[in-house]
């Protein structure tokens, strides 16, 4: 299991499009990946789940992965969120 914390930087937060990009990125990895706020933990490969977080700018997220590519998965998602979803996912 590998995990890291990252702050949502894009404005106004993880709305539909960033959520879709996040889920697409997560789905490329075989590990089980979860994203959590303080209140809620959801499957990072589920678009509905990620949207349900309704994470606004400044929210601290914990990304947790378990599996053969756990480290790469967490790092890719952290990079994506830090780059405000503006990098080629």
């Amino acid at each position, binding site marked *: 299991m590998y995990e890291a914390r990252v702050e949502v930087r894009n404005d106004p937060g993880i709305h539909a499009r960033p959520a879709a990009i996040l889920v697409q990125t997560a789905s490329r990895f075989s590990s089980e990946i979860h994203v959590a706020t303080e209140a*809620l933990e959801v*499957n990072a490969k*589920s*678009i*509905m789940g990620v*949207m349900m977080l309704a994470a606004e700018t400044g929210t601290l997220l914990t990304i947790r992965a378990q599996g053969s590519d756990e480290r790469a998965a967490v790092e890719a998602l952290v990079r994506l969120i830090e780059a405000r979803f503006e990098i080629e996912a």
Partner: protein
Amino acid sequence: MVGLTVAEFFEATRKRLGLQLLSQSLHSRSRLVNDMINRPQLALTGFLENFLWDRPQIFGETEIRYLESLSQQECGKALSQVMAFAIPCLVITKGLTPPPGMVALASQNEIPLFTTTMDTTQFQHEVTAYLEETFAPATMVHASLVDVYGVGLLFTGRSSIGKSETALDLVERGHRLVADDMVTIRQRHANILIGSGNELLRHCIEIRGIGIIDVQSIFGIRAIRGFKRVEVEINLREWDDAEDYERLGLEEQHTTILGVRIPLVSIPIFPGKNITVIAEAVALNYLVKAYGYHPAQRFSQNLLETIRRKRTLAQLAEGDPE
């Protein structure tokens, strides 16, 4: 932080319980931390061992009449002994008049004092129902919940295995969607699980290749449902040649959610297999079992009887060459 502040409790229940604040403020030294309430009867007589002060204290006719039977001094003493505890809040039922000094004492000790015109027993039922609902153990699962012939089927399995597609197919066939993808499950009573969706996602489904579909706007009100008891879990999984799948249904598998055991059916998936029809069969099979008929057991019994009969006939034939 755990629990409910008295202000939150008041906000949520004032209408339903007909609560009115008598003391000065909603500020309390304690929060509501469980679904229990208490009648302070013996505590008022001075027996304070085991006094369950960390719950809302209900003053019904018994308490108020007892306090009225005391002299003003005794009554003040009884109340101040009890109200020295950091009680979350007090409620006087039936619109009874608080004994002199009680309101002031409540304000002074920062214990919000409410009154309601509701009958004591009725109030206890209502408040307990609300608190049980609020403090019920809950969990969120990555699954879809559909009401199929009145049976709550919870579809689980790894991401993109086809939970949402199965749910959509079931809705198409006239069944009702409760929640897709994220299901909140709460425990009611000892062995009932209630599943519901999320307000933000409502009855939306994500289908790979299409995107988000709003089931209510497409299929109408009959296609959705707000809450449903979770009765059977259907676990969708990839076909694995190495695995032995259930062939008879004599032994039932179970899963445990929030400590409640429910039947679990594992269904292997491969192209061309109609999961929807299988899901309907699971629901109907659950229903016939609930009505006391166990198809697999019945079948097995018939088979046994046939074998026994044949053996008896064979023995008869052996003993009698004719």
